[in-house]
């Protein structure tokens, strides 16, 4: 069984190699090759999963060492995989959702002449993401971490002829680089502290290490997670990343890659458990991002950017849960999985709407689409109910648990976090209802575009609707399946550990409160967007709305602080370089030149004057010799 683990990665990696190196002759079959290999990886994942289910909880983890990567005295880097319950969860999510999105892309990208390359990149992403989650040491995890960053860059900028897409790709790459630096520093710190970076020894030795070092490692890991998972302060790239094709947004920027940060924190749980300060930082980042993303999601008129704000906010929930320690690890991952279903479904729905509307993304130009696209409407609607936490659907179970866990943190901290999470739930209900109402209800508001092409909204082909239907099933049933009988908790507990905390209020009270804020959020959204017609041109809006439309001024902040600051720094450095450094260098050269110009005059070509110097020199030497003798 162990030997199958490498095949998980090998299948999509082979696909990427074949599709990217194969050239034009694969154009007609390329998408099938990519999809089949992704499906093959999923099948291997299922086989491993069934095998794992058959074993006891303690000996479920599988290890496979492929080869020694860098065998040096005192520095051992292996390419080795570890498949435990946590990794298994991710493998199924990645390959499962990944395969569905491959199928969806066949239809979505049908008219793109570079479709083969697109599938090559998707396979590359799957391979890198799988390496990330099944690596058994931080260095190999880093390989996967960079691999998904590369795939994300390539796919955001897939339509690189659009300057906005090219810029967005660069932005995502650069912002991620800041986070990646955090991860590399964390790995170096681990090596100097523990002498290794394999999960087992590092996480097992946290008891004998000083808290200061663990805090440093934890904060660096948090920086890494912030970059990859678009958390404040490295969140600015996710909104622009929506320039990529919609399947990419669904797979990479909603379901899988952006959750890598959550995986990293949960995987490194032992470090965070032993470093309360780092854990507090994680909680704060999660809570801030949860509100930040939700507020941004409320103001965006671009359907994908509204969903991107929502993704940011939901990952904020996961990071918050992961920061709660053993109370929250399991629920962070559970929300991650259910979010993977419903958010991927929502994005595919958004893609389907765009497909029928000539790639229009402005929700103010949609309206009344439910009769034109019934399947998209129903699947999107189920995803919507799941994300707002409608009772019985996936989001209800997973989000409710996170809110409970936040209260169970105890003390003032617990009350603050719990309230933030509740507020987030209300805002989530508001912005998702807004998206729903603007897109599928009300009057139809679309108009002919500049070329006079009127959109003819129509249902998407089967290759696109079937993945949406399957994901809708996941959005509806996954939460219940996980929660009834605490199945998910029992499954993950051997890896992450679990504690109940001290809840100040009963679970029923929290659920009731969640329901109340949910109803309030939906009611406000209905009052604003359902009751009266929606203007096609966005009204000016309040100060907060205008700020939220500009992503709460994140880019302005970055521009003023980082770009301007950087420019000032470089300008002053250039000034120092020109005056001081160049001054010294040029001054040396000039004085040498002047001196040699003077000395050159001695070289006058008269043999007799040379003879004088020789005689003079000899006389001086002899005089000196005699003088020394005399002394």
């Amino acid at each position, binding site marked *: 069984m162990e030997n199958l683990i490498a095949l998980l990665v090998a299948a999509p990696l082979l696909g990427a190699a074949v599709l990217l190196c194969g050239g034009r002759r694969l154009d007609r079959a390329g998408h099938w090759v990519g999809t089949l290999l992704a499906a093959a990886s999923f099948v291997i994942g299922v086989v491993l999963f069934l095998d794992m289910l058959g074993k006891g909880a303690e000996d479920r983890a599988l290890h496979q060492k492929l080869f020694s990567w860098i065998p040096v005295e005192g520095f051992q880097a292996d390419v080795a995989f570890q498949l435990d319950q946590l990794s298994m969860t991710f493998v199924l999510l990645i390959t499962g959702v990944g395969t569905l999105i491959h199928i969806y892309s066949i239809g979505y990208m049908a008219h793109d002449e570079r479709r083969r390359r697109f599938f090559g990149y998707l396979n590359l992403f799957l391979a890198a993401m799988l390496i990330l989650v099944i690596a058994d040491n931080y260095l190999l995890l880093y390989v996967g971490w960079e691999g998904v960053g590369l795939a994300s860059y390539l796919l955001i900028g897939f339509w690189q002829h659009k300057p906005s897409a090219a810029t967005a790709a660069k932005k995502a790459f650069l912002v991620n680089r800041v986070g990646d630096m955090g991860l590399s520093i964390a790995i170096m710190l681990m090596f100097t502290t523990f002498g290794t970076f394999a999960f087992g020894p590092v996480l097992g030795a946290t008891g004998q290490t000083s808290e200061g070092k663990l805090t440093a490692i934890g904060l660096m890991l948090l920086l890494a997670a912030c970059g990859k998972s678009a958390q404040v302060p490295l969140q600015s790239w996710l909104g622009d990343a929506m320039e990529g094709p919609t399947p990419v947004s669904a797979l990479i920027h909603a379901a899988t890659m952006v959750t890598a940060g959550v995986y990293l924190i949960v995987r490194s749980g032992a470090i965070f458990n032993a470093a309360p300060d780092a854990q507090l930082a994680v909680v704060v980042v999660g809570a801030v991002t949860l509100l930040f993303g939700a507020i941004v999601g409320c103001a965006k008129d671009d359907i994908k950017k509204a969903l991107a704000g929502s993704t940011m906010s939901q990952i904020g929930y996961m990071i918050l849960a992961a920061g709660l320690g053993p109370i929250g690890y399991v629920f962070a991952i559970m929300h991650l999985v259910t979010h993977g279903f419903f958010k991927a479904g929502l994005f595919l729905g958004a893609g389907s709407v765009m497909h029928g509307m000539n790639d229009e993304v402005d929700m103010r130009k949609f309206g009344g689409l439910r009769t034109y696209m019934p399947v998209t409407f129903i699947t999107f609607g189920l995803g919507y109910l799941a994300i707002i936490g409608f009772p019985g659907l996936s989001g209800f179970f997973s989000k409710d648990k996170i809110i409970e866990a936040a209260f169970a943190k105890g003390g003032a901290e617990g009350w603050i976090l719990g309230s933030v999470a509740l507020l987030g739930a209300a805002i989530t209900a508001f912005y998702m209802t807004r998206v729903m109402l603007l897109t599928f209800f009300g009057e139809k508001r679309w108009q002919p575009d500049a070329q006079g092409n009127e959109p003819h909204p129509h249902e998407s082909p089967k290759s696109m609707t079937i993945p949406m239907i399957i994901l809708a099933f996941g959005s509806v049933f996954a939460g219940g399946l996980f929660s009834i009988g605490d199945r998910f908790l029992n499954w993950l507990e051997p890896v992450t550990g679990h504690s109940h905390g001290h809840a100040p209020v009963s679970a029923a009270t929290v659920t009731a409160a969640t329901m109340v804020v949910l109803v309030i959020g939906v009611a406000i959204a209905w009052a604003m967007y359902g009751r009266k017609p929606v203007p096609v041109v966005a009204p000016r809006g309040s100060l907060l709305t205008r700020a939220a439309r500009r992503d709460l001024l994140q880019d302005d902040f970055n521009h003023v602080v980082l770009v301007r600051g950087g420019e000032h720094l470089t300008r002053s450095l250039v000034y120092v370089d020109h005056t001081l450094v160049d001054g010294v260098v040029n001054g040396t050269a000039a004085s040498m030149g002047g001196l040699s110009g003077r000395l*050159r005059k001695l*070289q*006058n*070509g*008269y*043999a*007799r004057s040379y*003879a*004088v110097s020789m*005689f003079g020199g000899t006389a001086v030497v002899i005089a000196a010799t005699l003088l020394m003798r005399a002394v």
Partner: protein
Amino acid sequence: MNPVNYLYLAALLFTIGAAGVLIRRNAIVVFMCVELMLNACNLAFVTFSRMHGNLDGQIIAFFTMVVAAAEVVVGLAIIVSVFRSRHSASVDDASLMKL
């Protein structure tokens, strides 16, 4: 006669030669002055040989004479060819080796 007197003579001849080399412009005269210095050295060698009672100095003097003879051959040839091409034997006229 006290051999030290020969040393004084040698020093005198050397000084005359050196002064000639530095002062005179005519290449032939400069050349003769160089020979004068060489012979002053020979005289000093021979004197020291006599004073110390061994033959080393005298042998060196023979060497010097041979070298001087060879030098005269080459040097005069150069002077003659310079004179032919430039119609002047002044050392100051041949001052092309400068920047």
